[in-house]
């Protein structure tokens, strides 16, 4: 039975991989005490959340909090995020900080954490308050900025830049997601009564860069006279910029994105993009851990912790 010899070898290999991983992992937490704080984000492959993670880690280091960061592989995978939260409840973490992948879909997971008596801090994306109330769930606080305000700031900037008239296009996020909807509504609010501004196209590019490219290329084909674009996040805006470059119109179309990620800042510096609404994910991560620490120490925290939001333009970067 030659083959039987294969099994032990394979499993020794797996064990080896495992123990190696564990030993590096343990190293991070070995000299820390106190209850574990978990930060569950939407994903780790978006610079926004990497900044948030950095803020959380810096705060954890200063305050001597043991921190565990987890995220689903893909941003929209609400089911995976729920599994992660269930698993962390099993691990008996002290505080759960969550950036919900879905404003309603997160509710069952929050209820589970409530049952396990683990306080829940919501970061960045709001929970649907009606769904939460109906399920009898509770959150301790919301830490984030108002996306509605951000949308309004972007709208005001575009109105000014166009001198109050012209055709504009919008790249939406995924419909039904609180973040994108709030940004859009804020933008519409700013446009109220501005009858000389025409929204000729508004389409989703699902938050993604490559789709932003394709969708905006199509928009440019159909509406060559578009003078401004509001994109509900920078990834889609960056895709759109490529489409603008391909059409030989660099700088001629006013592009305002959202999130002010590094690539967008670079594009603004180069004059390819005009502005981006900056949320401050680093601060969000930092505030999340600072407040989790307060909870652990038995202090009260407010039910809304605002994080500033502003517009980044070329002037501000220089």
């Amino acid at each position, binding site marked *: 039975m030659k083959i039987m010899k294969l099994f032990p070898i394979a499993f020794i290999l797996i064990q080896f991989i495992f123990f190696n991983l564990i030993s590096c992992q343990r190293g991070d937490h070995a000299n820390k005490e106190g209850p574990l704080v978990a930060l569950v984000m939407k994903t*780790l492959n978006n610079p926004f959340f990497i900044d948030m993670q950095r803020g959380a880690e810096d705060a954890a280091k200063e305050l001597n909090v043991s921190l565990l960061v987890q995220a689903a592989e893909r941003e929209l995978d609400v089911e995976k995020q729920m599994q992660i939260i269930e698993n962390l409840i099993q691990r008996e973490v002290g505080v759960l900080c969550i950036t919900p992948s879905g404003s309603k879909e997160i509710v069952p997971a929050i209820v589970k954490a409530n049952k396990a008596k683990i306080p829940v801090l919501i970061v960045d994306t709001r929970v649907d308050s009606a769904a939460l109330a109906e399920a009898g769930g509770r959150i301790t606080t919301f830490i984030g900025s108002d996306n509605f305000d951000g949308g309004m700031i972007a709208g005001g900037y575009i109105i000014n830049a166009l001198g109050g008239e012209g055709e504009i296009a919008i790249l939406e996020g995924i419909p039904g997601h609180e973040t994108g909807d709030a940004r859009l509504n804020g933008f519409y609010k700013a446009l109220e009564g501005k009858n000389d501004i025409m929204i000729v196209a508004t389409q989703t590019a699902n938050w993604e860069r490559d789709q932003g490219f394709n969708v905006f290329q199509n928009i440019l084909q159909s509406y060559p006279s578009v003078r401004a674009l509001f994109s509900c996040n920078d990834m889609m805006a960056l895709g759109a910029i490529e489409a603008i470059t391909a059409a030989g119109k660099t700088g001629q179309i006013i592009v305002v994105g959202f999130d002010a990620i590094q690539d967008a800042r670079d594009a603004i510096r180069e004059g390819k993009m005009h502005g981006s609404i900056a949320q401050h994910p680093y601060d969000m991560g930092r505030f999340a851990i600072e407040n989790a620490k307060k909870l652990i120490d038995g202090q009260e925290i407010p039910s809304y912790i605002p994080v500033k939001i502003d517009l980044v333009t070329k002037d501000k970067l220089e």
Partner: protein
Amino acid sequence: MQYKEFILHNARQFGTLFGLFVLIILLWILTPHFLTISNLLNVAQQTSINAIIAVGMTFVIIAAGIDLSVGSIMAFSGVVLASALEAGLPLPIALLISLAVGMVCGLLNGLFITYGKLPPFIATLGMMSVARGAALLYTQGRPISGFAEDFRSFATGEILGIPTPVIIMIGVYIIAHFVLNRTKLGRYTYAIGGNEEASVLSGINVKFFKTMIYAICGMLSGLAAIILTARLNSAQPIAGIMYELDAIAATVIGGTSLMGGEGRIVGTLIGALIMGVLRNGLNLLGISSFVQQIIIGSVIIIAVLIDMALKKHRK
């Protein structure tokens, strides 16, 4: 002598089971939170959706096919189910609609493959896109959420302390095991996967049975949609992206050959559990999702390597 034969005959499944045990023991050593009743039920519950989809996938793969559309079909069934519930249809009818939507999508897959003579990869790749688009169109891209307690009990309820999704999963496996081993449909599934031409020549209505297999696979996606929708209290048109790969992985880790003709339903359950336990354990240990992907990928490759080595040995 008889049980020795049984072990030899099922060597691959015992290998997988052994792998699962090693994994469980490892995690038990590494974290005190793993081997608790509540965590094991938690894992079983998390595994149920993938495990149910993987049953259909096992049938399809044994018949030497592949189904890439299961995740999209699940999303489509889910949103139709949600709108039926929202419209106030009685619960049993809404559930039947979910199963029917899945079944019709699967049936179309089957017809395109048998009568349209499309390779399964192409037919189901097409359906993957069509069903996803249909789900998005049907909902205008928005999730449908908020359901009554009786429907939600499909995810939140428990019988004798065992969560409902786990009971449904076990039920599906018992039925599937019976169908695959004791019925004409099951035996023909092996025959078609082993040698389709010989099956035609020996008078099996291959087209009919093949179409049935894809229809069953689609129906099970509709069943998974019920659990997923109840679990999240929301049906998302973008749910289930990449679930087809998880189901294929569970099937392959469980010892079903992608060449068709061999595989066991129990193996698939163990395969799905290995994936569930791995994900759960890696979360408990606080290992990042990047590393998790590498580990799960490695497990798939190792499982198939062992599989091939075993086959060589048998010959």
